[in-house]
């Protein structure tokens, strides 16, 4: 009956970032710092700094992806001129506002890992391109015009700064809209969103080839970019939905109701299937063709130390959202949806773990204080930064031209 009920909401409502949320996110950041210090200084196992860097790369990439998913969500809503989401746009905006910070952190991790030879040593190592050197690797030498340190870092900086610029533009127009109203800012947002989606669509695969796929520089897959995009989008949607649910539980966002959560649930459901579709497309082609240079990727992941995680990855990221979220009622029940969001956020951590660890840690994968601590630290940092950004503006873009449609959304 959404259409025919007229309730009034306080559109100046602002999120107040204090109390438990603030304390716990700060504690989580401290745990993260302690875990990094433990990984570098106290842990005395053979590969300890490599292990810490792999974990930092994982979480830095995950963190950037979730924030980029916020910018992507905004752009998508503007390009589709979608009305249903107008009331909840401030949450992806808060994600997008954190993107520049996330990008800087990711670049710092990559630079430090690259120059200390803890990351990407597969293609960044002494003598790999020198014919007379004992380390000479013809495959890497052939790729050296693309995979070399200056060009690699240049690409990272260009891609991430473009994404950040567009994320900032999209939030800036929305803030300007709050002040002056009218359609001019909305029209500008649509234009910027179109340009962003085109750039993001073409560069995001290359960005994930660089950041993740080049860890195993011999191996290549053209599906890898889409596979990473699907992971980015599902984990971003889960983080967004989880934020909205928790805000609603704290008494905010009165105008976001079961209908909006239902739509977000459909998004999560559909893109979990999309993730599997891309994952499987990559798998079946490699499995069918059975060419050694391609199968090396799955060969490593089929070894006993990864096999369990290989299967768990599919169970968590495909079977559970499909089976749990299939019915309409499940998507409309806040607690079920919240459970699936948390499950998928953990699941995509595992997904990234499966992408990174076999290449960087080889047959000695670790799971312990370093991994858990760094994950907690990044979650805390994301929560802290995102909620700080969220608290700086009212929780709804009240001059959004399609807001009325969102308030009466009914499915």
């Amino acid at each position: 009956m959404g259409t025919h009920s007229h309730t009034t909401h306080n559109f100046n409502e602002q999120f107040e970032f204090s109390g438990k949320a603030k304390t716990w996110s700060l504690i989580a950041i401290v745990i993260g710092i302690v875990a990094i210090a433990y990984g570098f200084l106290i842990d005395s196992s053979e590969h300890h700094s490599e292990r810490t860097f792999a974990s930092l790369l994982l979480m830095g990439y995950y963190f950037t992806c979730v924030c980029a998913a916020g910018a992507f969500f905004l752009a998508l809503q503007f390009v589709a001129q979608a009305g249903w989401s107008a009331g909840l746009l401030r949450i992806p905006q808060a994600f997008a506002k954190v993107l520049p910070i996330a990008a800087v952190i990711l670049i710092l991790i990559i630079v430090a890992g690259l120059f200390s030879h803890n990351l990407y040593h597969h293609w960044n190592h002494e003598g790999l391109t020198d014919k007379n050197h004992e380390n000479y690797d013809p495959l890497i030498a052939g790729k050296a015009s693309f995979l070399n340190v200056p060009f690699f870092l240049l690409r990272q900086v260009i891609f991430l700064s473009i994404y950040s610029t567009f994320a900032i533009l999209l939030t800036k127009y929305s803030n300007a809209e709050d002040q002056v109203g009218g359609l001019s800012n909305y029209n500008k947002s649509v234009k910027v969103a179109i340009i962003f989606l085109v750039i993001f669509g073409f560069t995001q695969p290359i960005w994930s080839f660089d950041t993740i796929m080049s860890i195993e520089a011999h191996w290549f897959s053209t599906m890898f970019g889409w596979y990473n995009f699907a992971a980015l989008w599902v984990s971003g949607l889960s983080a967004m939905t989880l934020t909205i649910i928790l805000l609603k539980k704290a008494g905010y966002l009165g105008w976001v109701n079961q209908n909006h959560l239902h739509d977000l649930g459909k998004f999560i459901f559909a893109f979990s299937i999309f993730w599997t579709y891309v994952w499987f497309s990559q798998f079946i082609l490699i499995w069918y063709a059975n060419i050694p240079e391609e199968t090396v990727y799955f060969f490593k992941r089929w070894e006993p130390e990864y096999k369990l995680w290989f299967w768990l990855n599919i169970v968590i990221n495909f079977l559970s959202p499909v089976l749990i979220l299939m019915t309409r009622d499940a998507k409309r029940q806040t607690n079920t949806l919240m459970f699936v969001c948390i499950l998928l956020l953990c699941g995509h951590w595992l997904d990234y773990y499966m992408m990174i660890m076999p290449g960087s840690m080889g047959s000695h994968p670790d799971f312990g204080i370093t991994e858990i601590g760094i994950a907690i630290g990044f979650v805390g940092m994301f929560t802290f930064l995102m909620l700080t950004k969220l608290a700086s503006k009212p929780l709804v873009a009240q001059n959004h031209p399609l807001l009325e449609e969102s308030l009466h959304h009914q499915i």
Partner: protein
Amino acid sequence: MSNTKYILGHFADPDDMMHGIEKLQANNISIYDAYTPMPIHGIEDKLGYKRSRLPIAAFCFGITGTLTGFSMIYYMLVYDWPMNIGGKPAFSMPDFVPICFELTVLFAAFGMMACFMYANHFFPGRAPRVMDLRATNDRFIIAIDARTNPYPDKIVDLLTEAGAVEILHNERKYVSYE
């Protein structure tokens, strides 16, 4: 007793029609159906419609498609004519996935369409039956079964009060396109 089967209240405005529905319901008059030229949000809830069972049908058709695909491929590749393809065993599951998936989608889509057509009496060559042609054009229509609801005058009064621009007393249920 008159021969009136259905009383149709024509409204020019969807909001008037929604108020008309509320008024009739408040007076314990059961509404047979409402016809509108465009979808109106919230009207199903107001008329007390149950949710469509089409998703259940879709699920059943989908499962049928999966099983059909699986048994077909199993019969062909494992039982009837096993072949050595790239040295892989005849019964290897990744092969089966695309075919099972495609047949699931095909069966679910066609099955849903067939169910929808059947439930709504759409068959090729059959002229659709409607209660009033203007419901497809510019009028929002409430239909009331005159034989189960007594006091036709009261119904007319209520409809007029709600803003009906025209009230028809039809002796036949449907008009045909012909």
